[in-house]
């Protein structure tokens, strides 16, 4: 299968024909519009190795994320970054998109758990970076750069991830609170040794999830107060089936310092201890990006303003130089991240 991928990429590079990597297609909406001939990654699937006591799993790109998470669950382990599925997600797409869920602020994001990758670059070369061990500083950390690269640097054929034990106890609380107070509370809890694994605020209600040893969770719950709430809330949030995400208004995903105020009109949902703000607004892309440096147009009918915030000149030059290093023919998912490469 790897040889087939290599051959397909070499052949496309020779023709200068754009290729579009695609697993389950669950994130077709994400980034700028995909273009090029589809290279379906689902044929290269399955777990290569999984040693629960090593806290490492290595799997192929086409492995359904659901299947991977089930295998971990059988050993009481989880992907700590709690990735969204948005449908029939595969591991390759999960790493390429680099999207993390509610546990991000406390546990870390996709890139924090990527230990190694096997990648087919734009010249069809089969390359391995990092490895299946916790600590590895040999060579540049190419694997983590691939997380969130949207397939523009290469086909992420296999990924080794650090996994963690599932917390033995989880509990969700809900408190009535306005936006400003909620952001203050999230930051206050973040500075205390509490087992907070997720926070979210929407429409006057602040949700907080506690995860860890049972006595610690209950002691923290006592301290935080509020009402018990349904654990299912976090799945609705992660998978964007929560009513907030419905409707035709453009949906922005804004990454900010956790204490920042976001001065924009629209409906808001706050996650990650204040560091992630979802915004449904009719404001123009320029207005949004003036108010917040890193604003992604997540779901929208019109993405002509570009899905991602523009890069400064030095970063833009580095991006193009890296792209040229991995994909000299410029055929891998062109334009998906930024229009000009």
């Amino acid at each position, binding site marked *: 299968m790897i040889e087939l991928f290599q051959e397909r990429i070499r052949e496309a590079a020779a023709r200068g024909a754009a290729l579009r990597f695609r697993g389950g297609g669950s994130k077709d909406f994400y980034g700028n519009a995909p273009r090029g001939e589809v290279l379906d990654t689902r044929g290269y699937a399955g777990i290569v190795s999984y*040693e*629960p*006591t*090593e806290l490492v799993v290595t799997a192929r790109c086409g492995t359904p994320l659901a299947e991977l998470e089930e295998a971990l669950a059988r050993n*009481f382990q989880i992907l700590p970054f709690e990735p969204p599925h948005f449908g029939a997600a595969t591991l390759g797409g999960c790493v390429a998109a680099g999207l993390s869920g509610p546990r991000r602020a406390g546990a*870390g994001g996709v*890139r*924090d758990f990527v230990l190694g990758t096997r990648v087919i670059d734009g010249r069809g*070369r*089969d*390359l*391995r*970076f990092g*490895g*299946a*061990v*916790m*600590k*590895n*500083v*040999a*060579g*540049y*950390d*190419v694997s983590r*750069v691939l*997380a969130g*690269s949207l397939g523009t640097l290469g086909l992420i054929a296999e990924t080794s991830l650090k996994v*963690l*034990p599932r917390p033995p106890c989880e509990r969700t609380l809900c408190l009535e609170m306005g936006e400003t107070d909620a952001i203050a509370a999230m930051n206050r809890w*973040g*500075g*205390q*040794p*509490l087992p907070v694994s997720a926070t979210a605020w929407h429409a006057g209600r602040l949700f907080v999830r506690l995860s*860890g*040893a*049972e*006595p*610690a969770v209950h002691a923290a719950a006592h301290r935080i107060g509020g009402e018990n709430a349904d654990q299912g809330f976090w799945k609705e949030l992660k998978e964007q089936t929560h009513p907030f995400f419905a409707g035709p208004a453009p949906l922005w995903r804004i*990454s*900010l*310092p*956790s204490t920042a105020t976001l001065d924009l009109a629209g409906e808001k949902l706050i996650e*990650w201890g204040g*560091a*992630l703000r979802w915004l449904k607004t009719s404001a123009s892309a320029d207005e949004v990006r003036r108010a917040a*440096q*890193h604003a*992604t147009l997540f779901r929208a009918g019109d993405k002509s303003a570009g899905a*991602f915030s*523009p*890069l400064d000149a*030095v*970063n833009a030059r580095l*991006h193009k*130089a*890296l792209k040229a*290093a*991995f994909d000299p023919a410029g055929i891998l998912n062109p334009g998906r991240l930024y229009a000009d490469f």
Partner: protein
Amino acid sequence: MGSRLSVVNALRGFLPERAILHEEEDTRPYECDGLTAYRQLPMVVALPETEEQVQRILKTCFSLKIPVVPRGAGTGLSGGALPPGDGVLLSMAKFMRPVRVDPVARIAVVQPGVRNAAISELAAPHGLYYAPDPSSQIACTIGGNVAENSGGVHCLKYGLTLHNVLGVRGFTAAGEPITLGGEALDAPGYDLLALAIGSEGMLMVITEVTVKLLPKPQAARVIMASFADVEKAGDAVAKIIAAGIIPAGLEMMDKPATRAVEEFVGAGYDLEAAAILLCESDGSSEEVEDEIARMKAVLEGAGATRMTVSASEAERLRFWSGRKAAFPAVGRISPDYYCMDGTIPRKRLGEVLTFIGELEKKYRLRCPNVFHAGDGNLHPLILFDANDPDELDRTERFAAEVLEKCVAVGGTITGEHGVGVEKINQMCVQFRPDELELFHAVKHAFDPAGLLNPGKAVPTLARCAEHGRMRVHGGKLPHPELPRF
């Protein structure tokens, strides 16, 4: 290529005289970092105090086409800050300003010359701390930590430098200002921050670092557990993980290591045990009590012959003092020692330690082992006498076999100390030519002229062809007073 005088004259245009060292008596202290086996007098040492000066130094060197090697405290163990004989050693030692601590957002913005431990000291009044704790933390700087992606004893639970740095600011080799990451959790585009961290000063010069601060755990206790054989201790580690526990620290030392240490610091270790484990739990007091009880049960089931739980903070620190002093303690029982840094999948521990035991006989050299057991990072310490050329040669061959073994069992030649000049030949064993070529392409994207820290970390393909296989040099550590991992 500039002569010394032309470089000094160019720097005099914007640097005060005290910030330029070029006489041998002044440059001599910079001839090596923590790996003293490699020495090279720098042509010039520059000690800038402002970002503007850093930028002008870089622009000057860029136009003169001479190499620049950045340096923090010089505690690195792989020769990453070995100076250029034909260029400028850029000491960031004067960048010692803590720019800002934001206790609400839990971040600190500091200059790169701020010591690792000083960040936690700055954060302490707010109940916060900076998690990565390389054991040289009282001396090493955050800039060097970023360059090496430093670890420590708590990284299984709290991550490496990479997981705790939010952003860096600095300059490219050409002197262009560059910012990667920031104060938010995500940044647009490729994660170039991940590339810069651990790049051994080859991609950019850092002038400011933004780090995450964490709430200081309310409580911490450590279990010292004895085992009658090393394999059993290794199995106990796997059983702790299998029980769903991620200890804050999980360290192993074998008998030769505990004996060397005990004589030095009197940590109270069990000297009859073939291996001891230190298993730490931290968090709220409820969490710690719960976790210590669960770990004790697992360790008992795994065949621990003796267990002591620290009863006070003083006792906890005493148990750790032995581990933290392992390197200098070994330094006392041998004229020289060579520290390795391979990482292996934990399940191969028994096999690798047995292999090391056989090499001790084969090369007639002793090799105590200290081990970050939780994350598979081995630090075997080969004892030798550098004045005996035959011992030095045997040490080199011993170390080479150990590192090859680490790669063969699916691990890596370096877990946290970096490649530098020390392990550059072993990179040829771990990576294939296509992969090395891509590393060079990454370097070229940032530094097309190849002026930043040239010749480190990534070997040329020609070098790999020439060496054929690895060849390892012995090293002796300066700063013997510093605890090290």
